[in-house]
């Protein structure tokens, strides 16, 4: 952590410009509300200078803060004209126009840094408590309806749902609603398409290869055809979008050993 590293390493790493400013305030042993903008600006710039000398990459945020500090300092130095109300263009990350705003932001950052410090302590405490992990084998599910419900409950990401599903699917008694993968393996479909094409020896519409009326059959057929097309085993023709797809046997079905069974199984 920063506080400890300070004594061993010349330049501690800071999480951001506020972190660095906060560190400088602490080092000066003054309250946030009593910082001298001139002093802090000087120290801040000195720090950036030493980073530069060490060839450390200075993140753009640090430079934006440097500019902000310099502007605050110059404002304090120049006599204020009461008539002139400055309308500053908004800065990308911080819109800080007065010293008070800077202090306010530093104070807010300090509070969250302290909260983060608490979280670290809680993390350490909690690390000492070991919980049972069985690799997702025992998810407590009381009824089937509930198991389905809990998949969706409070899920905000597709990944949430997928992870929960995986957990439930890992249970032995889980029975899937359909077994698409079992029934329509793409490779097997490809073999089938190949054999039909060899037998008929003429182009066929895609629908001729769809042997069942369910959506999975259609999907598997389509994927199989795409895969075969990639392997140059078939050619696909379609004269307009959403029009019927015509399947032609490939000119030179390459024997790359990609699916040996596909050609081995000749139909008689």
């Amino acid at each position, binding site marked *: 952590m920063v506080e400890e590293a300070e004594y061993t390493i010349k330049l501690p790493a800071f999480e951001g410009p506020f972190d660095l400013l906060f560190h400088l305030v602490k080092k000066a042993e003054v309250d946030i509300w009593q910082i001298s903008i001139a002093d802090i600006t000087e120290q801040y710039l000195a720090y950036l200078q030493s980073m530069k000398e060490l060839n450390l990459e200075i993140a753009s945020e640090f430079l934006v803060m440097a500019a902000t500090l310099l502007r605050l300092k110059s404002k304090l130095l120049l006599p204020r004209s009461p008539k002139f109300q400055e309308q500053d263009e908004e800065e990308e990350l911080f819109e800080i126009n007065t010293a008070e705003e800077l202090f306010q932001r530093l104070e807010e950052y300090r509070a969250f840094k302290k909260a983060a410090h608490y979280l670290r302590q809680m993390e350490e405490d909690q*690390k000492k408590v070991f919980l049972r992990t069985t690799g997702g084998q025992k998810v407590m599910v009381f009824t089937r309806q509930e198991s389905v419900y809990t998949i969706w409950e409070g899920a905000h990401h597709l990944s949430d749902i997928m992870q929960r599903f995986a957990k439930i699917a890992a249970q032995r008694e889980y029975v899937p609603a359909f077994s698409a993968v079992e029934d329509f393996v793409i490779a097997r479909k490809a073999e089938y398409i190949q054999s039909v094409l060899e037998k008929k020896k003429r182009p066929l519409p895609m629908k001729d290869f769809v042997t069942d009326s369910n959506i999975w059959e259609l999907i598997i057929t389509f994927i199989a055809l795409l895969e075969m097309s990639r392997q140059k085993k078939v050619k696909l023709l379609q004269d307009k979008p959403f029009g019927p797809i015509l399947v032609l046997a490939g000119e030179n079905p390459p024997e790359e050993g990609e699916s040996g069974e596909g050609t081995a199984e000749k139909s008689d």
Partner: protein
Amino acid sequence: MEKEQQKRAIEALLFLSEEPVKLDKLAAILSTTAEEAGRRIRELQEEHLSQGRGLQIFEAAGGYQMGTHPELASFLEEAFSEEVSSNLTNAALEVLAIIAYKQPVTRIEIESIRGVRSEHVLDNLLKRKLIKVSGRKEGPGRPLLYGTTPDFLKYFGLKDLGDLPELEVEEVEKEEEEAGEPENGTAQ
């Protein structure tokens, strides 16, 4: 079900469960009231404590969970060393703290407090499931809003968000404060 039996059943259920179990769920399994189940849990907790057992029951993320006693950490770390996950980075903790106290909060709001871009940190926290996208903010660009998850509570051993220590922000009152005011909490 007899009280002793209820107690044993709760102990067994919590022993097997990886996740905190809500009180009403426990009550439903035991066909009893949440009040009764709560009483059994407290009895169990006392027994574990008074007998100096290796396991303890505690509240986490709105439910009850069984875990090892913190005093045994050194033995367990040795035995299960490969399973100990790495601590969060300082940056991650900062972002988490901001989200925990200000949720729902946008990335820009987080970055403005930290003064640093935090996209990468947010991604990592999402991956660790300590935060989630909790919606979108109405307004230009409808930015994503982030909030903490039950896993966040579990990770830090919190019952609920109210269990977080209070955020100590000193309000401005600059004009009234005297210069002699001691530096409050500036030293961590």
